[in-house]
């Protein structure tokens, strides 16, 4: 059916095909780069908006806690700090569980939102939708509650049949709280609390 193969035409055809395809992809990349960046930005903006009370401006900053770098958005209204939206990632059941945790200036959790996860659909993946689970983070004051799931003698209701995911979620919130306490320089107890529970979780 096709052309008789020899070294010259094989090399020529392969080179031309690859050159042509990479040219097309280069063009497509340039064309879609803006919308892709915008979509990613819109997603983050939406996530911050959902986890913090009203604000005018955010700045993206990095802080190092226990030798680990955490990124967070500092949200301000006028000159007053509204709160911090901390990106906090732990290992869930199926892979990394990445949250954005909104904490107001007085150290209370305002809301949380999942940025990305690879939990089991129908089980751990409910951490994004299960009202009963997600609503308990709203307005949670870390000094009033023990930030552990009930199975570990804490105050957090785990998702049914998804204790590992719930633990990971709780740990992520806890880490975010200790990051904020480092940023604000307040409440050293919260920091130690977070460190201890980190060790416990890794032992399991």
């Amino acid at each position, binding site marked *: 059916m096709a*052309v008789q193969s020899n070294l010259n035409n094989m090399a020529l055809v392969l080179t031309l095909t690859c050159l042509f395809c990479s040219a097309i992809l280069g063009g497509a990349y340039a064309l879609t780069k803006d*919308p892709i960046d915008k979509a990613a930005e819109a997603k983050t903006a939406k996530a911050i908006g959902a986890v913090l009370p009203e604000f005018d401006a955010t700045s993206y900053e990095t802080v190092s806690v226990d030798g680990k770098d955490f990124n967070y958005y500092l949200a301000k209204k006028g000159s007053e700090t509204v709160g911090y939206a901390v990106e906090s990632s732990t290992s869930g059941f199926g892979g990394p569980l990445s949250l954005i945790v909104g904490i107001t200036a007085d150290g209370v959790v305002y809301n949380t939102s999942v940025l990305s996860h690879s939990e089991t659909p129908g089980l751990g993946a409910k951490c994004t939708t299960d009202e009963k689970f997600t609503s308990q983070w709203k307005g949670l004051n870390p000094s009033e509650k023990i930030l552990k799931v009930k199975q570990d003698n804490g105050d957090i209701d785990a998702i049914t049949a998804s204790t590992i995911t719930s633990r990971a979620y709780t740990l992520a919130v806890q880490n975010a709280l200790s990051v904020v306490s480092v940023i604000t320089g307040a409440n050293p107890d919260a920091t130690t609390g977070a460190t201890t529970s980190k060790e416990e979780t890794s032992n399991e």
Partner: protein
Amino acid sequence: MSNRLKLITSGFIKNNPTFVLLLGMCPTLATTTSAINGMSMGLATLFVLVLSNMAISALAPYVPDKVHIPVYIVVIATFVTLLQFIMQAYTPAMYETLGLFIPLIVVNCIVLGRAEAFASKNGVLDSACDGLGVGLGFTCSLTVLGLVREILGSGSIFGWNFIGGHDGMLAFVLAPGAFICLGYLMVLFNKIANKNK
């Protein structure tokens, strides 16, 4: 004309990629956790299939025999990457759900299979029809499989929940349920298809 129509319909029944040819099992089992996911995966494959079939049938006469597989794969990979860019830019939520399985379309046996078996020997328009038929067949199969698994596993249809706050039979959302559903649907499909012969 009726010949082309036959090409399209044969992708549904005689050459149905999922239930008859048993090709592309990896995305079939993995992405059909819900009807909408299955349908999106099917449409993504349809897009690549039609375009790569057309491009390959146009290129085939000029490609030396010994390098035809690498050339086909480069062509298919180009379309898949294009699709990836487009999805990432305009349907980021869908891209996140299907994420890993979009690049895997490159090595989906359906696409390379149709390129080898059909597109390399037929004209551009016929190949487009073949791609459309097989692609639609794949989309429908995946949607049906997704629908069955969604109804049994999470008690909803296209995201609309009909059993209230209860849980469905979780096994059907997980991997074992995928195999069980696929097996039963295959039996059912082949029984109906054989009756119509």
